[in-house]
């Protein structure tokens, strides 16, 4: 798929939870071709002092309307400016960037572990998996019910869901790793499964330990700082746990990723 820069209208923007926005843009081609894990890189026009674009995962698509959604949190200056957009405003978007989650035909189950905004890429993933015959189990954790989002979309997408909040205001109280640990322990050892992960670094570390403990292959999507998003600046390295055969010790988050085999990479921060 060739990358391009498009100038597109905002179709809709909604605050779906506290400080969390879903922004819909018109992008007919991408709405048909986007794969879960891929991202777009958005110019923030109001903030001429911000040099870089801001990267966001493709959250979901509607190929019929020709739209693409991102789900984002107000984390700083750029996302704050983005959240002030209105329907009809024009955005300069670079996409589709990065690789995607992949699975083989012989899998029995896909387990998704998402922390907070880490849910973003998985709506598209579940859309892609709509007619997939295997089992889909989603472990989803939020800090509290105030940050919870995507419940409605998830309801329609046919995954079994385990929900936690740190304060117990929705679902089980605690971190997602507790029920995930129990669940992985309960599984028979011979089934072919894959775990997909997206969330904050401490969660990624914890889930990595679990996948090691239960020997489950896993893919993770990383969120490195990015100046370009398409391999030009070499500023977004992901360290490999083992150097590759050709001696390379780093991969690029934007080009070789953002999805990586969980065991193969080192979390630097």
């Amino acid at each position, binding site marked *: 798929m060739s990358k391009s820069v498009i100038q597109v209208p905002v179709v809709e923007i909604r605050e779906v939870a506290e400080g969390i926005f879903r922004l819909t843009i018109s992008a007919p081609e991408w709405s048909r071709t986007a794969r879960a894990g891929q991202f777009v890189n958005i*110019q923030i026009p109001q903030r001429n002092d911000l*040099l*870089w674009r801001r990267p966001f995962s493709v959250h979901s698509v509607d190929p019929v309307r020709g739209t693409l959604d991102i789900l984002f949190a107000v984390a700083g200056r750029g996302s704050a400016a983005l959240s002030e957009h209105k329907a009809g405003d024009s955005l300069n978007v670079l996409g589709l960037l990065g690789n995607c989650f992949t699975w083989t035909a012989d899998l029995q189950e896909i387990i998704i572990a998402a922390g907070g905004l880490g849910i973003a890429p998985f709506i598209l993933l579940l859309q892609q998996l709509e007619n997939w015959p295997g089992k889909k189990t989603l472990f989803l954790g939020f800090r509290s019910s105030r940050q919870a989002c995507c419940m409605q979309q998830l309801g329609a997408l046919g995954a079994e869901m385990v929900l936690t909040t740190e304060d117990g205001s929705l679902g089980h109280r605690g971190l997602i790793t507790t029920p995930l640990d129990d669940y992985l322990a309960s599984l028979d050892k011979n089934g072919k499964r894959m775990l997909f992960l997206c969330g904050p670094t401490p969660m990624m570390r914890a889930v990595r330990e679990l996948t090691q403990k239960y020997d489950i292959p896993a893919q993770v999507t990383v969120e490195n700082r990015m*100046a*370009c998003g398409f391999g*030009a600046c070499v500023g977004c390295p*992901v360290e490999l746990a083992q150097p590759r055969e050709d001696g390379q*010790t*780093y991969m690029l988050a934007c080009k070789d990723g953002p999805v990586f085999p969980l065991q193969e990479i080192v979390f630097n921060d």
Partner: protein
Amino acid sequence: MTDLSTNIGRLRLDNPVLTASGTFGYAEEFADFYDLNRLGGVVTKTVTLEPRPGNKPPRICETPAGMINSIGLPNAGVEQFIAQKWPFLQQLKTAVIVNVAGKTPDDFVRAVEKLEVLQGIAAYELNYSCPNVKEGGLSFSSNARIAEQVTALVRAVTQRPLITKLTPNVTSISEIGRACEGAGADAVSAINTLVGMAIDIHTRKPRIASITGGLSGPAIRPVALAKVYELVKALTIPVIGIGGIMTAEDALEFILAGAAAVQIGTANFMNPVAALQVVEGLQRHCEEENILRLMELRGAVQVG
């Protein structure tokens, strides 16, 4: 039709817009976005004799109207460059300038010797900003004597146009430029990045793992323009202007100051079609102002 062409010594370019080393990969990364042959030329990411892994992350951070980077010149070494990157570059009809760096003068010479076998390299650009361990961490570029020596050694092994890329982090950039000119450089390019630093006050760590890095982007454009103007006055060989150029208007400032060509760096990240838009903007400017040859504007700044 306006004539945008320019000459860097013996090297004729269709237009003066090049891409800056390290900001355009090996050109392939931009092939999706536009026809690369519309550029005056491309400068490759720095190639070194031996492979280099690059620096630990974080390697980049954003600053007011700029960014700091400390990438560490990761590359697979000159042999892998020839095997993996050259086949694509070779197909380009635009000028391909290969940027070379080394830790010792000998590294430069040996890397260039290996590149000499390739047909179609338009010029070499020597990047002296690689820290030189032997000389106590001083980069080649901040010492006129060493810059002269490296230039002369490389000059001895190639007939191709030689561009030396200068650092702004010196008391007198024209002194270094004159040394390179004296040693046989066909042109100089300036500027490389300014040494810069930023600290995350929450983690109290430097925002770049290597503590300091190189500042680039619009923030440094005034510094770059002053250095280019200084070099133009001091040298007889052409000067290629680099630093914070985002638009054709910015490029024109450098041409008016006397630059024979410009390189687009950081702008490529924000806007992958930036370099092409500079070409188009220069064309449009000439048409609007009835300028037949863009290079009529070279050095046309009105002082005094």
